[in-house]
């Protein structure tokens, strides 16, 4: 069997397992965590697009997630727009803001880009906290509605219950991953990878790299906005705490830990970042120290992340079995 066929079969098996999961997992809290992890997959795929493919670290992912979450919530709660519609509008509104924010920040290269995006995240957080007449400030907004049920020829897809929402999150996470795969294998994706490898060279070859960087930044932000909308309508309560700089750093950790620049890496990383605190619960106070340590240690000892490491191990094993 060719490695490609093997990989496709693996993906199909994983997808089937994901579809059957609610039949096996009966513990509501566990399913809750899995839904959160799937939302984080959307966020991490976006982060990977700019950080892993393009080589520009953006520290605004949680801020853009907040923009998406508040856009969708405010449109549905204050203006009474249909939830399905506001959830679709959230990534578009986030993208519009990202175009405005991306243009000045992409005029600077490398680390300065990261610092400017971090400033954006701080600005978003301050505005969400301070503009309380609109956002409810620290007290937040409660009773964010779930999307209404969808019924197709007698079959009712209920988004009000956890299992129904699980499938929504699964669909969105899969689509986000497919979108990133499409980008990676297109001409644009090759330009993005080339920017990471040698930006001066690709500019000398006549490519206007800022357009591609802006594209990566905007798509990355709109995925974060989509994740935010999914999050807000799932949790049902919204305040700025989920959108601070810490969470942007967690998105970076998810990408690095899973495998930056790979498609499977952000999936693994997102699950790790959501599930790790559950196992570290005893050490809640040490969480920041432990996360930071994992980030430092991964970058030093395993810079390519878990997925390439495991893949390499499997390949070595297969080669040994063949002999």
């Amino acid at each position, binding site marked *: 069997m060719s490695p490609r066929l093997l990989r496709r079969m693996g993906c199909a098996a994983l997808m089937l397992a994901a579809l059957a999961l609610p039949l096996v997992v009966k513990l509501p809290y566990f399913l809750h965590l899995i839904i959160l992890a799937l939302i984080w997959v959307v966020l991490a795929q976006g982060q990977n697009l700019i950080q892993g493919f393009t*080589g520009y670290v953006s520290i605004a992912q949680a801020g853009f997630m907040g923009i998406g979450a508040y856009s969708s919530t405010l449109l549905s709660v204050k203006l009474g727009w249909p939830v399905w519609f506001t959830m679709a509008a959230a990534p578009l509104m986030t993208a519009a803001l990202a175009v405005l924010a991306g243009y000045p920040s992409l005029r600077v290269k490398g*680390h300065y880009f990261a*610092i*400017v995006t971090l400033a954006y995240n701080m600005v978003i957080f301050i505005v969400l906290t301070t503009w309380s007449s609109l956002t409810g400030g620290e007290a937040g907004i409660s009773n964010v509605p779930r999307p209404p049920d969808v019924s197709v020829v007698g079959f009712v897809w209920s988004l009000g219950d956890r299992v129904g929402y699980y499938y929504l999150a699964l669909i969105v996470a899969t689509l986000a991953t497919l979108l990133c795969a499409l980008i990676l294998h297109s001409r644009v994706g090759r330009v993005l990878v080339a920017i990471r490898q040698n930006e001066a060279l690709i500019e000398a070859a006549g490519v206007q790299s800022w357009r591609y960087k802006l594209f990566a930044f905007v798509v990355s932000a709109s995925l974060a906005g989509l994740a935010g909308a999914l999050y807000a309508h799932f949790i049902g309560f919204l305040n700025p705490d989920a959108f601070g700089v810490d969470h942007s750093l967690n998105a970076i950790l998810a990408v690095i830990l899973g495998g930056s620049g790979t498609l499977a890496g952000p999936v693994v990383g997102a699950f790790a970042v959501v599930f790790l605190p559950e196992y570290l619960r005893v050490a809640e106070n040490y969480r920041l120290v432990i*996360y*930071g340590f994992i980030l430092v240690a991964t*970058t*030093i000892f395993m810079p390519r992340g878990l997925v390439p490491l495991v893949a390499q191990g499997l390949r070595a094993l297969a080669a040994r079995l063949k002999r």
Partner: protein
Amino acid sequence: MTEILQQMLNGLAMGSVYTVIALGLTVVFGILGIAHFAHGSVAMSGGYLTFFFGERLGIGFFPAMALAMLVGAAIGVLIERLAYRPVRDAPHINAFIIALGLTMMIEGINLLAFGADQVVIQTPYRGVFKVGGVAVAELRLLVILTACSLIGAVALLISRTKTGKSIRAVAQNRPAAVLMGVNVNRVSAIVFSVSSALGAAAGALVGALLAIAPGVGEGLAVKGFAVLILGGLGSVPGAIVGGIVLGVSEAMAAGFISSAYKDVIAFMVMIVVLLFRPEGLLGKR
């Protein structure tokens, strides 16, 4: 008018602290090429340590700050040796991600060691002079003076001493410096100890002027980099101008627009400068 002068003076004090932060960042960046984002968190540790030494040992503000600077220098050497040196030859993005990880770790350690409550360092310098209707607080003057002497000391170290010469050599051309017998590891350690000592001092000044609390460090690091963006990279005069511009615009924003949005306005200044003069206010085109 008096109000404007008053806010400018307040802004100068804060701006001089930002310059000290930025100077610590620019020596590390200019010489080792590392965007040492954890600098702000190291500064916060310095502030907490100054508070701790002052309370526990009963010593004055300046001796406590000096002790905190010593500990800060040791932290800097450790960080360089354990976290940054292993990735010296890896792509620059790795060092930056390590800096983010270090930020989380140091913030976490600060939280564990000193708690989540905000800390204000008490100083005996509570006098206020009136100069033509403008209230000049003794503490603010002392902060500006301290910042100026730190900046001067570092400038002298880099331009006048033998160590400074080897630091400049590494900054200009690392392989050539190695060939000429400069010990790069030693230079890296010195640069990090100087930078972190500066950071610790800045943290102490922030603690005396405003307050220190979890999360302040990240904001300080962003402002330090904002100063470098404003002033243009690798230039000490640029860092001074950038610090003053940032501090004064922030104080003006707090005084005349809204104190809740002062950081937002400071960052807007940075973004406007990026749009129209991406090379910085004093940078060459």
